[in-house]
């Protein structure tokens, strides 16, 4: 399309990739964490829950700084990843990490509500039918929390699409590599008269978000219809 330059299209494609990878990669961890917080009682439970919320509470720039420190070549983690050639610094994977972390609390909370709403008696029933823990989880719990998982995924995806502060602080803005749509929008808004170009990108974001949410609503409705009690 003529009204967006190739660099902007690159940003759209990259944002989609970053958001999709971030959400999918974070999902299993979010499910695990949600399970832990919903089903287990242990010392430090509330503290862990609070820690999960931190990316929400801290200004994104701070999160970006912390990521930068963690993954910098001089830090142990960053140094190791750098040596094995997997450094996320200035790489789209870094953007995905930032987006995943920023969306994590949203995913965990939604999925945790799902776990809390599952009737444990159904899981007991599965147990008496011979299903071990893992089987109960995959055949009963997971299908029952599907609406919550979908809700968490949408929240995570939406946040990942919109994440800016942590991303640009961590992986900067390299067109085609780390320039996501929000970074591009931000750049346009920094110069007088850049609003037009920014608005075009905003429109694209909105279209993507609307499509994603509508798709998720359809999925969730199907899932909900299946388990309507």
């Amino acid at each position, binding site marked *: 399309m003529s009204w967006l330059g190739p660099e902007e299209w690159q940003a759209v494609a990259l944002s989609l990739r970053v958001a999709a990878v971030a959400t999918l990669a974070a999902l299993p961890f979010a499910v695990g964490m949600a399970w832990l917080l919903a089903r287990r009682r242990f010392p430090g439970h509330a503290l862990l829950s609070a820690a999960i919320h931190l990316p929400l509470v801290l200004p994104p720039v701070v999160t970006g700084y912390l990521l930068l420190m963690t993954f910098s070549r001089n830090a142990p983690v960053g140094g190791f990843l750098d040596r094995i050639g997997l450094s996320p610094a200035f790489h789209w994977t870094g953007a995905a990490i930032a987006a995943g972390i920023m969306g994590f609390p949203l995913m965990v909370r939604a999925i945790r509500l799902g776990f809390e709403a599952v009737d444990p008696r159904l899981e007991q*029933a*599965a147990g*008496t039918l*011979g*299903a*071990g823990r893992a089987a109960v989880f995959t055949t009963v719990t997971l299908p*029952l929390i599907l609406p919550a998982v979908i809700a968490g995924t949408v929240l995570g995806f939406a946040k990942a699409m919109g994440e800016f502060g942590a991303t640009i602080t961590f992986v900067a803005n390299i067109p085609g590599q780390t320039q996501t749509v929000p970074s591009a929008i931000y750049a346009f808004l920094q110069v007088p008269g850049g609003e037009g170009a920014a608005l075009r990108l905003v429109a694209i974001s909105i279209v993507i978000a609307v499509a994603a949410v509508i798709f998720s609503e359809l999925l969730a409705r199907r899932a909900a219809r299946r388990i*309507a*009690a």
Partner: protein
Amino acid sequence: MSLSVAFRRRFDGLSLDVAFDAPDGVTAIYGPSGCGKTSTVNAVAGLLRPDQGRIALDDRVLFDDSTDLPPARRRIGYVFQDARLFPHLTVAKNLGYGARFAPNPPDAAMRARVIQMLGLDDLLDRRPAGLSGGERQRVAIGRALLSSPDLLVMDEPLASLDPARKAEILPYLTRLRAGGGPPILYVSHAMAEIAALADHLIVMIEGRVTHAGPLADALADPDAAALIGPAEGGALLPAAPTGLIEDDLAQLDTPAGTLWLPRPAAHPGPLRLRILAHEVIVSRDEPKAISALNVLPARVLRLVGGPDRTLVQLQVGQTQILAAITARSARTLGLVAGVSCFVVIKTVGLIQTG
């Protein structure tokens, strides 16, 4: 296969202290609402952790000080008081759920038989949400049966079913028992069901086992009648058809003597007759020209007086039968231990249960 249970568990309102053995066959647990029946079977199935105790299936310890097998490894099929169907699965998938975890999953024929017996054919593609209360319970029974358990626990499984459906399912459970199926722990309020099905009876009151033993003994014991309920005492007799059939009536050999009853539906196993104490009439003279076909000579063993009825224990043939009569009748008829008399049992009053 034999289950031995002994455990304690304290709740706020009630403390359970339960101990019994359930030999092969069907063991019924009977008792008033809130006495701890569901809690007990939950402990057996691994859903309630006792404070202490030991629960074992033959040599396999399910629970003790050092063991607490998870439900999945106990291999105990459980029909819950509430059906607990999986709402996200169709009826067919609910029924098939246990098979994939069973070491010896049921074959297609078994599956078809269970589905047909429970009248589930038309429901297979439905989801639990749209099912009626009875339909749900039938699916729950099928689901447990098809998980090939080592022990079947059923918590008032037939309470929400109509008599016709009950009458259809009970013989199936009987056959399950007779055909080498798993032992069954059967919680019920309905002595009629228990009489039809059980071999052993556990009576619980306020968290404790107050009676345990063979069912037939409990029913014929005038002293146990207080526990079981005034209207439920009687006799439970094994019966074998002699093959003789007249006027659509079959002749049966029983320890009490020869009895006639409407020709039973073709049943493979042995029959079981339940004779309720309050349906037995005692006569000093042999009654004639009477619609009750079964009149047997008897001898009074003892009388146990109650507030509004007297329980008369009678020796009939080689067995004992209980009759509940009024104190006035007992006096008018001069019934005392040792007296000879007749018992009148209406043919169609015989409950054919096996």
